[in-house]
């Protein structure tokens, strides 16, 4: 009951905020910014309350199940959105970020009936580290993807010598390039911590069936592949200067996003023992 009502509440708030962002393309308004922030803020309050009640209800929450995990990722993205809108009120971040937030919430709904993760007392702390770091890596990749798409959009406009579109303000290429570079490094570090803590968790062997998630589990393999990709991307851009240039970094972040989608899709659609029920 709480789950159904809560998710609808904050998803609706974010949807209204997104509609208000879209309305920037059509007309000007003096109060829209405040209303938009109001809806996004109200959504965040409802979202936080929902996660809090989940934490009270279930041990290990708010990272005790796949649904929680996606909702926490969406929550962090909304916090980032509010931060960006506060400092860059005229920039259209919401157009790119809010659909990603709604996508994560929709995926969380898909897992509404999923069993909580298996978790023994000893592995609780490692489980939290593992879950949090993978959430942060996901958020960093999402933000990088947003910056990458904005970069391509802005480049396209500038190359075609077009003036800024009505109601669609994008950050400068320099800002976007910095954002791209930083997110990819943050994603690598947090993903590294996530994988390391996952390995420790697995070696502790508290899984109910055989004590461990197989090392060849599709989720483990796809996450490792994504980490390898991030590592190669960061090392290459550190060693080979042209890769640090705007468009190439934007490509790296977009490819990272594709890897992330594959990893998430594997968890959604393939048979996996990762995060098995308690």
């Amino acid at each position, binding site marked *: 009951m709480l789950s159904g009502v809560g998710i609808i509440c904050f998803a609706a708030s974010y949807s209204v905020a997104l509609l208000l962002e879209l309305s920037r393309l059509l007309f*000007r308004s*003096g109060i829209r910014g405040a209303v938009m922030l109001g809806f996004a803020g109200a959504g965040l309050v409802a979202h936080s309350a929902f996660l809090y009640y989940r934490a009270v209800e279930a041990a290990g929450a708010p990272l005790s199940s796949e649904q929680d995990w996606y909702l926490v990722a969406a929550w962090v993205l909304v916090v980032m959105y509010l931060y960006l809108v506060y400092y860059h009120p005229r920039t259209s971040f919401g157009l790119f970020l809010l659909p990603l937030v709604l996508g994560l919430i929709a995926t969380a709904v898909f897992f509404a009936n999923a069993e909580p993760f298996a978790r023994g007392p000893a592995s609780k702390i490692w489980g939290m580290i593992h879950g949090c770091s993978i959430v942060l890596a996901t958020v960093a990749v999402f933000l990088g993807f947003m910056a990458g798409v904005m970069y391509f959009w*802005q480049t396209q*406009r*500038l*190359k075609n*010598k*077009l*003036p*800024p579109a*009505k109601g669609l303000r*994008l*950050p*400068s*290429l*320099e*800002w976007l390039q*910095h954002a791209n570079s930083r997110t990819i490094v943050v994603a690598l570090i947090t993903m590294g911590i996530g994988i390391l803590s996952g390995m420790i968790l697995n070696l502790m062997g508290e899984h109910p069936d055989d004590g461990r998630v197989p090392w060849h589990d599709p989720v483990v393999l796809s996450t490792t592949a994504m980490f390898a990709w991030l590592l190669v991307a960061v090392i290459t851009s550190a060693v080979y*200067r*042209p890769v*640090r*240039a*705007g*468009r*190439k970094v934007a490509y790296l972040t977009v490819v990272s996003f594709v890897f992330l989608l594959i990893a998430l899709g594997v968890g959604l659609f393939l048979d996996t023992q990762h995060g098995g029920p308690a």
Partner: protein
Amino acid sequence: MKFQVVGCSHHCTPIALRERLAFSPERVHDALDRWRLEFPGVEIVLLSTCNRVEVYCAAAEAAVVPDRRRVAEFLARFHGLDTSDLLDCLYRYVDQEAIHHLFTVASSLDSMVLGESQILSQVKQAYQAAAECESTGLLTHAAFQAAVRVARRVATETAIHRRRVSIPSVAVADFAKQIFERFDDKHTVVIGAGEMAEETLRYLQDEGVRRVTVVNRSFERAVELAQVWQGRPVQWEQLDEALATADLVISTTGAGEPIVTAEQFKRIERSRGDRPLFILDLAVPRDFDPAIGEREDVYLYSIDDLQAACERNRRQRDKELPGAMRIVQHETVRFMAQQHHRAAGGVIEQLRDGLQQPKEEELQRLLNKLPDLDDSSRDEIRRSFDRLVNKLLHRPLASLRDESRHGIPHVLLDAISRLFRLKD
């Protein structure tokens, strides 16, 4: 009450005559002083810009406000011109039309370049100068305060000021600032010399550009320009090295063929390390081979590209015009209603006083007859009497307010004065 504007603008007067009619800032005070001597009791604000010379005048008594001929005579005498030369080109708007015109001018909807931002500060300065000379009064104060408010409303609620229409401003705001986040760490190379290059550089320096290199075929000229622009001169032969470290390039040479070819740029590009390069080629014929613009991190804009962007912006501004005019119209009607209502202020005050006196008398009589009442009952009776007076006044005041929308409600004021035997 009368508010009037007499003047000329770029719409109907050739620049030669506008130049002769213009008031330099030093002469404005002199003109205002002379006006006060010639037309005592008439408020005046003189607005003089390169595109218009306008005399805004007002007085509580309509008869003392000089007509178009007398304003023309004043202007002709001041500038040593023939009145008959002026009469044909001077327009005159009175009351609502004059207010509408002032609001339109202040909002930059009557400017040569629609939406240009300078006019509002010129309107403010004109009012400030008149206020310093004590030539303003209640009417001009209210009108000019309202004009500034309307201009701000137009700026906030429409995008008419947002679109830039001059080549240097479009180059910097719509393109350079979309590439670079900050300019204080960027290297700008100016090739050749030209007014537009100088203006663009000024915009960039306003944004924070500090490091400027000037390249010119004549090194002496480069040294000269570098001094003016606070840059560093380099020899023409060092152009490639300057381009290798440049982030922004402004080029305006008079060369007959490109000074940087695509092949040459490929060599330069190797030492650039894939940093973005913003090139503003303002020369005709072009200084940079257009093929250079196809390189990945190069953003090359020619004068034609920028002119096309300016034209697009101009069309966008034109689209905003109807919305802006609706705001001006709405504010004009509102302002006039306020002024008309204010004109009825004396009658309203007398009407209130006329009812207050009998109310106080009756209240006192009643309270004297009821000496045993406690304080709270006395207060209740007093409030009841006050409410009764307000209710009696409500309908006549509402009628006055409604009628004020269409002008000073002379007939209604007269009727109220007669009915309630108010003084003139």
